């Protein structure tokens, strides 16, 4: 079926629409979201289940998707979060199970045979924008339908981590019998953050994003993990306030959204990047370990270096564009990184940072 990705800025890209719904059902629930591209060669299932992709349409620059099938163990959360999946070609051969079928079974439509490279040019030059995946005969018709839908959906609640966080507190058992307790503040946490921590500590307790300081303190963890998550950190007000009260109490380690929230809680500001960083090949200069390594990244905002108080050191830089990729408040034993040491997808080079965190906690 003819489908279009219509951008808020007016451009449209034609593709082949693959969805499980009838066109009437589809119109009622058109996928609308921020259109973002990821340059990783592999890891489509990990990406789609990463809560940081909440309210986003994912474009993969790697042209061929679905090649190696699916595997439940790749899921980074309990659901697929992307609104839609856009690629050049998705595997359609007859197999027992396919990525396409899994997406469609989860009501995620796919636009393939779409000129993703030109789409990326557009996003790179004009910046990230919202878009809608529309079933239509031609671009004009698609555009006619798209703009209103995009405006409607954009009005939704802005604290995205609150929309994706766990509703209940839950415990996880680690494999290390060292008695260590780590509290994870879930802003949309990837499973692999838990897995990495479980390899290093005995007890993990995962808290909803707006959990009160008292409740966390009551459990008396040795350290606090601020997870990744979707959206604009400026909108995550309540959690930021809470974290201000936790700084200095116990060591804190933040990843991605967790990093941005920590920076804000320390008095810094964040700003929106033109088109974000999403991929598995981002070089980071780590001044703590004195190393350069490749990292997995997925973020649309960054910490403004000029806004940070003097007590906070910039410890990591993104070598592609020089943006802040990590900070540390040594006195208060807090540090955080903009990238994903838990990988999935992406290189494992930075997993060593979890060990750094444990060192702080001990």
């Amino acid at each position, binding site marked *: 079926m003819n489908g279009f990705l219509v951008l808020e800025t007016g451009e449209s890209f034609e593709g082949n629409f693959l969805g499980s719904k009838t066109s009437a059902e589809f119109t009622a629930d058109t996928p609308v979201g921020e259109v973002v*591209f990821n*340059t*990783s*060669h*592999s*890891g489509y299932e*990990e990406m789609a289940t990463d809560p940081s992709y909440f309210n986003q349409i994912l474009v993969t*620059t*790697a*042209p*061929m998707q679905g*090649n*190696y099938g699916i*595997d439940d163990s*790749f899921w980074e959360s309990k659901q697929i979060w992307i609104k839609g999946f856009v690629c*050049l*070609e998705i*595997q359609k*051969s007859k197999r027992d199970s396919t990525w396409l079928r899994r997406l469609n079974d989860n009501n995620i439509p796919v636009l393939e*045979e779409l*000129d*993703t*490279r*030109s789409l*990326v*040019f557009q996003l*790179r030059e004009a910046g990230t924008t919202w878009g809608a995946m529309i079933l239509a005969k031609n671009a004009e018709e698609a555009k006619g339908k798209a703009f209103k839908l995009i405006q409607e959906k954009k009005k939704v609640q802005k604290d995205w981590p609150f929309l994706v966080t766990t509703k209940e507190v839950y415990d996880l058992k680690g494999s290390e019998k060292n008695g260590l307790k780590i509290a994870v503040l879930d802003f949309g946490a990837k499973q692999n953050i838990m897995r990495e921590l479980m390899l290093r500590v005995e007890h993990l307790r995962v808290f909803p994003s707006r959990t009160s300081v008292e409740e966390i303190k009551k459990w008396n963890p040795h350290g606090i993990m601020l997870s990744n998550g979707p959206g604009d950190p400026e909108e995550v007000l309540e959690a930021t306030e809470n974290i201000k009260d936790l700084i200095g109490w116990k060591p804190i380690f933040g990843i991605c959204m967790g990093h941005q929230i920590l920076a804000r809680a320390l008095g810094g500001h964040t700003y929106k990047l033109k088109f974000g960083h999403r*991929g*598995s*090949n*981002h*070089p980071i*200069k780590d001044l703590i370990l004195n*190393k*350069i*390594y*490749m990292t997995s990244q997925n973020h649309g905002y960054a910490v403004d270096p000029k806004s940070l108080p003097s007590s906070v050191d910039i410890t990591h830089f993104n*070598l*592609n*564009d020089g943006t802040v990729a990590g900070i540390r408040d040594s006195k208060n034993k807090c540090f955080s990184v903009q990238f994903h040491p838990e*990988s*999935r*997808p*992406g*290189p*494992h*080079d930075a997993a060593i940072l979890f060990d750094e965190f444990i060192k702080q906690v001990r």
Partner: protein
Amino acid sequence: MPLFKDLKKVVIFGSGPIVIGQACEFDYSGTQACKALMKEGLEVILINSNPATIMTDPEIATRVYIEPLKKMFVKKILEKERPDAVIPTLGGQTALNLALELYECGILEGLGIELLGAKPDVIQKAEDREKFCRVLDSVGAKYPNSKMVRTFEQGLEAADQLGFPLILRPNYTLGGGGGGVAYSLEEYKIKIASGLHESPTNEVLVEESILGWKEFELEVMRDSAGTFVVVCSIENFDPCGVHTGDSITVAPQQTLTDEQYQLMRDEAQKIINAVGVETGGANIQFAVNPENGERVVIEMNPRVSRSSALASKATGFPIAKIAALLAVGYTLEEIENDITKSTPACFEPALDYVVTKVPRFAFEKFSGVKDILTTQMKSVGEAMGIGRTFKESLQKALISLENSDIPFPIIEWKEENLTYPNSLRIRYIYQALRDGVSVSELYKKTKVTPWFLEQMNDLVTFEKEFTKSDFKKFPLLRAKKLGFSDATLATWFSKDEQEVREERWRQNVRPRYFQVDTCAAEFASETPYFYSTYWAKPKQFENQKSLVVLLGSGPNRIGQGIEFDYSCVRSVSQFQKEGYKVAMINSNPETVSTDYDTSDLLFFEPLNAESVLEVLKYVNPEGFVAQLGGQTPINLVPQLINNGYNLLGSSKESIDLAEDRGQFIKICKELNFKIPNSDMAFDVHHAKEIARKVDFPIICRPSYVLGGRRMEIIENEDELISYFDRHASFIDKQNPCLMDQFLDRALEVDVDLVRGKDWTIIGGVIEHIEKAGVHSGDSMGVLPPQRLKPETLKTIEDLSVQLADRMNIYGFLNLQLAVRDDEVFMLEANPRSSRSVPFIAKATGVPLVDLGVQGMLKRSKNQLIKYPLDWKQMPFVCVKGVVFPFKKFQEADSILGPEMKSTGESMGRGKSYSEALFKAYVSSQCSIPNEGEVFLSLRDKDKDELIEVAQELIEMGYSLSATQGTSTILKEKGLPCLTVRKVTEGRPHCVDRIRSGKVALVINTTSGKVSIDASFSIRRSCIEYSVPCLTEADAARSFVLAMKHHRSRDFDTYSL
């Protein structure tokens, strides 16, 4: 860390003559490295014996030595130059082994020279299988069970323990040399013996088979700060069991999950650290069991390799250049990404396209050789296709091989075509799918990962849906997105290719040119490196003034290789000096011409009419250049001209005068040139008639073949009948057999000249060392000529100029002439740059390519560049040596004839003819024996002539042996000679004697099919036991001259 402060002068080793397993990729890497280091202000000394390379051009390095890459020569150069360091990682296995040898005998230490890029213990840890296995153990990496074998008996024991099939990997050899797969004890016994012999350390790793596992390769880099990046992951279409150089490969890898890939990446990082590679590039090969994902390490190369060249072209990441900069002190962070100009080199390229590499083979050149692929590399070249999908890139790559514009023609197949890997297997697989064999069935037979088979099946499904449908309603765009060529579609609808093309143009189904930008469009990129795809709407080209399109030479093959890339690359700067911009088209990832900074625009595209026309239509150039890339562009000329494009230089009419045999003969007669008698025969009866006029010996060849295919020298009527018998299917009324008088005992010469508006400059006259009958590409040659009389040379030059004038040449003309009894015969003309151009340019110093460009542009005399332009003033004698791939092809005969079989050439430069000869032989991998027995088996007509040679050998202290006939004559002349049995006379015979190691040199001249067949085993045993074997009288004479020089030990090394 920036550039090492104390570093002023570095030496770079090239890789020597082109051989299977070590081709022009090392010209690419060496050239890139030299350029980068020169830019850093270092003095760069380059040593390479291969004159066909760009890197040996005087401009590339501070000083260039075209000298043998052997200890005794290199030592002299090092003593003379006293460099601070040697970088041994850019010239393949040859350079690495040489560096290790220089280190081990203390030369480097003695001269205070450091090895940069790879320390000796690192080389050993990666190259020595036992040491490498210990490294793997230390990082917990798995590898196939194996045993290191040093004797035949140990070999038998190992086989007993490991079970068949077994893989043999001799230590320290290149391209899997001497290795292979053994399925039975019988096969194994032969292979273990030759493997032990092949390994310089007489060690063979015998390994349990992982046949059928998925094979991957990671191209990695590391700097002194420990930063590690994977430049490219490569997945093989062919599962384990086929040498990766012979496999179809795809980048990036397509079928590993992210987790599997990342674990492989982790392991690669651990291995490179544990081996101790401090800086530079390396590649690591892995195998993955498709049943359970188990991963093992196959091997590692601690240097820039063939796959680094591929990875560089596939990603835009210049591995060799960066390896060179890392070796002299920089870190990845300090080096800019050349392509984006805004991001650093410490990153991993992201691709938004798929790259497929396919090997090109030459089995047809070696009659009797079985087309079966094993762990020993046999391909002679490769082509790469870039597309947005695997399907698009695969079809582009196959078209780029230039065998056919139809990648998957209808062919018949047998079960064994699928189960035994072979050069055409992908076509058989496609046909099997066409014939309804299922993907799962094919997987069982081939072990090719089902994803690849599914992709091919997609093509078959489309083909079945639409062949014989209505062309008017045919979804052309969809077909083009799948990569189907116009030629393929033409067969579906029984149309002419041009008709399909015009319909396509009417519908505006045209490709888009996308950039190779290292980053999947994440960052803006200026580098003009493009590939075509139908997965986006076409876009207008921003018109560039004075643009010329230069057609390259495509994949290397026997007869068309690096020499043509030299001409292409060298021409670019001259075009630029003349005010032009150059757009290069080529499909060969090994070359310098496909480096993104060689030309102004680079189109990585197949060199067929369809792709070239699209590029021309896109950039709308002032003209196109077809004289530099060998026969490939010449063949495209008619179609390009018919589409209205302007050919630069000699016109199509001039080209036809040379290419069309009839027209050529006509103008030769018109100019009163002597030419051999000739005629064309339609069948054997006709041929017998002609033979009476032309007179034996006669050279026969089917009319349309190139490169001397099926060309034979026929001595008598029986052989003529046999020839027509054997080649009947290639000869008929439309394709008659050309029959030329063979100028027996004539001396042959090659002439290369360039001509412009009012001038002609002879580049040089190369005198062949062998007499007529050996293909000019296979014969050794000397410049200046040694046997021609000055007045004959003058005649040759005069005739050449006359012919060029008559043909109205603008640019290059290559001529072959023969001289017999002071009479000069015109044999052949090629209206283009030739294989001998780089040799002549380097030997004489005449900038032949620059002048050729000026000629093509019809410049007049007063516009010419001022250089020394008289080739006769050359200060040295230069001899062209030749290298053959016989070792790689069991059953191949090493006898030289009119069909070209060599893969590469070397140059020996000397103050005297004998010094040059000596060096040329040494560079051509000939061991020159100092003592021992010389076995002679001579045809009657050579016996008298070679008596003199035998006499000299005796005087030099060698002993002689010969079969009865030759022995008798030698004894009659008073020369002591041991008589040995012919093979037919029972054992022990002469071949046993060669195999036993008693023979140091063989001179075996023979002619006529029967005698050639009878003496085959003599030559074959020489190949297997690395005994030099001369098959032509003058070659034998020259070899003895070289031996003499060797004994005098009087030689020096000279920079260009």
